């Protein structure tokens, strides 16, 4: 039974669903077209080349948006919007850098801006359409437990203010350094540390309270 694990900074998930189908094709594409090549082709006017980038990163970008926004519908909408915005800024992207991390920070910033314009806090425990990425579809009990764990953690994250969510997302799910977070969010180093430590404290309390 494979469970989805994520190391700090690099998500190595075992992904099912739409992405599974594309992944097999993607591995072929990888041999033929690296991200850099696809970006160059996109800049040359090939929209389908950007489509291949979307295929590769749509699940991870969707999960960034889900962790930030808390509902599947909003996450899907914002993930799509994030790709469109990234396309508009592709001419500014340094093609010597990896595309994935940059794409995920675009998504994070988009979500943060959206959250700051809206004060709604969503409880993803109510978003019952979640399904995890796991190969163990034959063990509903495991999937149920993982669903509950994921909902619990997402629920705790979604109770945080938007700026706390953003630092948790960038540090723990995208593996950015303090300096990189400060740069992406336009904060001082001290502010990043303060937000991060307070966010962790809050998260710890909420998760601990749920466990009791």
């Amino acid at each position, binding site marked *: 039974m494979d469970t989805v694990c994520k190391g700090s900074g690099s998500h190595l998930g075992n992904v099912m669903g739409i992405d599974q189908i594309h992944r097999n094709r993607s591995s072929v594409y990888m041999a033929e077209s690296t991200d850099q090549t696809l970006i160059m082709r996109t800049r040359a006017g090939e929209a389908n080349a950007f489509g291949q980038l979307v295929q590769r990163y749509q699940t991870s970008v969707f999960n960034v948006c889900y962790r930030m926004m808390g509902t599947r519908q909003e996450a899907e909408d914002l*993930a799509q919007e994030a790709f469109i915005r990234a396309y508009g800024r592709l001419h500014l992207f340094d093609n010597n850098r990896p595309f994935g991390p940059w794409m995920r920070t675009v998504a994070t*910033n988009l979500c943060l801006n959206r959250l700051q314009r809206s004060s709604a806090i969503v409880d993803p425990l109510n978003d019952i359409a979640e399904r995890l990425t796991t190969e163990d579809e034959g063990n509903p009990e495991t999937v149920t437990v993982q669903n509950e764990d*994921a909902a619990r953690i997402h629920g705790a994250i979604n109770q945080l203010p938007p700026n706390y969510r953003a630092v948790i997302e960038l540090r723990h799910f995208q593996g950015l350094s303090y300096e990189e977070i400060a740069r*992406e969010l336009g904060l001082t180093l001290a502010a990043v540390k303060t937000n991060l430590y307070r966010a962790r404290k809050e998260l710890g309390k909420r998760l601990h309270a749920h466990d009791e």
Partner: protein
Amino acid sequence: MTNDNMSEQHVDYTTLNEYLDQILPPEEQMRIESHLRACATCRQQLAELESLFSTLDQTPELALEVDLVEGVVKAISTPPQVAQGDTSNLSISWLLIVTQLVVSSTLLALVWPSIRRAASSNRLSDFAETLSSGGTKIWLQITTQWQQFSAIVQTLIDRGVSNVNSNTLTTTIWPDITLLWWLTMVIILAIICIAGNVWGLPGYDLKNGEGK
């Protein structure tokens, strides 16, 4: 099992975070490790923080149930069109331009007679005619000093000029400076509005995630 070392202060929460994030200087890192070996309370706090890190690291990702590729490729392939909202913004912009032009024209109409009077070099002939009709010859001494109007009138009366009033005298004083100032501001604003509509005003730009 070691006992709490009460001779040292406990590690504060911020330092514990920095220790786990490995951003402390090496000597500080070693000092903390040394303290942790001796202090069960701090070890407990560290363990809770580590547990939180682990929980976040192992948060399962959700499967994406829709394919974003088609929507994104369609959006980036479609030429930009003026949307409903854009049309209304365009209407507002033209309304502003027309308003600017009307206001500036009105102000210009108000100050124009003054400008004409000031710019005219022939009004003096009327004055000269008035002066001459009385059979009185006046020698006007040109001075760079500003004078009160009443002083000028008195000087002329003293010289025997009758029927001296503001209608028979002309001045080189510019029209009301306040009116001119407003006119200038309105014209500048009109130019900015027109330029903004022709070349496009800078729009709100989300961070592109690339950093500085």
